[in-house]
């Protein structure tokens, strides 16, 4: 092995190397604890966009300077960040959302949803999204509307967005 590469990958264990090791560990801890929270997808709520068993990171800085927009996918916390819901934003504060025979309507206008490649049969009467709230739905509309978790939630529950 090239001696420079060897010295970089396997440095002598001296005081400098120990400090570097501690710094890297500290930075990794801060990065993955607060800014890129690793998570595993469990369930089929966001299929086919995100499938059961997938791995991703939640980018918590995503909405630091701008609020979430329609069609963004967001991670929503429950009591903390150990369990989060991954959903797609379909309506913003003040808008009226409804489903009619398998189509999404925002403010009475039918919306295109290119991420859902099949027909479904949901129907939900119109309702207004409260101030400081967003309306989120999973991409998996094959499941019965009764068993699917969706609805409006306060924006302060948004932890971030998946990295990819």
């Amino acid at each position, binding site marked *: 092995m090239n001696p420079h590469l060897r010295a970089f990958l396997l440095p002598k264990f001296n005081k400098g190397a120990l400090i570097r090791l501690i710094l890297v560990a500290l930075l990794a801890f801060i990065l993955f604890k607060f800014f890129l929270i690793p998570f595993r997808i469990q369930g089929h709520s966001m299929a086919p966009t995100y499938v059961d068993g997938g791995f991703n990171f939640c980018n918590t800085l995503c909405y630091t300077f701008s609020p979430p927009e329609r069609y963004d996918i967001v991670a929503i916390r429950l*009591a903390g960040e150990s*369990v989060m819901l991954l959903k797609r934003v379909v309506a913003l504060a003040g808008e009226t959302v409804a489903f009619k025979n398998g189509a999404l309507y925002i403010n009475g206008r039918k919306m295109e949803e290119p991420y859902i490649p099949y027909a479904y049969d949901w129907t939900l009467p119109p309702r207004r999204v409260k101030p400081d709230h967003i309306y989120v739905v999973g991409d998996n509309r094959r499941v019965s509307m009764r068993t699917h978790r969706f609805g409006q939630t306060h924006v302060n529950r948004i932890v971030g967005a998946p990295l990819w």
Partner: protein
Amino acid sequence: MVTSRTVVGLIVCLAAGLIGFFVFYQTDAEKIRNRLEILAERVSKEGTENKLTAAANAKKIADLFTDPCVLKLPQTPYETASGEFSRQDIRSYAMAGRSQYQRIKLDVYDISITFNDRRMADVRLTARIRAGQDGGRPVDEYDEFVCRFKNVQEQWYISRMAAVEVLER
């Protein structure tokens, strides 16, 4: 010589006392966390139980609640799981609910505790329940809960437990 031995002995006793205090002393927050761990343990099961064991476990679950207590749980096959319940009611519901599945695992996450006073605390947490039976469809549900704990004779009991509607249709 005797004096220095006495001093050393006293120091050792004091150190042991301090270590014992820090190891065994539980703050009220730790006691509440401990109660939630006990609840998770008692709800969980691995394999089928005989009726006597099931009844004993259901009683142990009910013993963690005040009598009566207020529950507002997510909609379940037992749709009446909202309102005021006696320990006997909780025992019956726990027995009926647990008997539906062969395996149950309850996990509690992100516990935050706020003390209103020395005898009352509000607790927010996420609970995840996984249940299954051979040939049946597995259950994997998670919800946020707010609970009120009351201290009765130095024991913390759940006096109120309500599911939070995170996504409101």
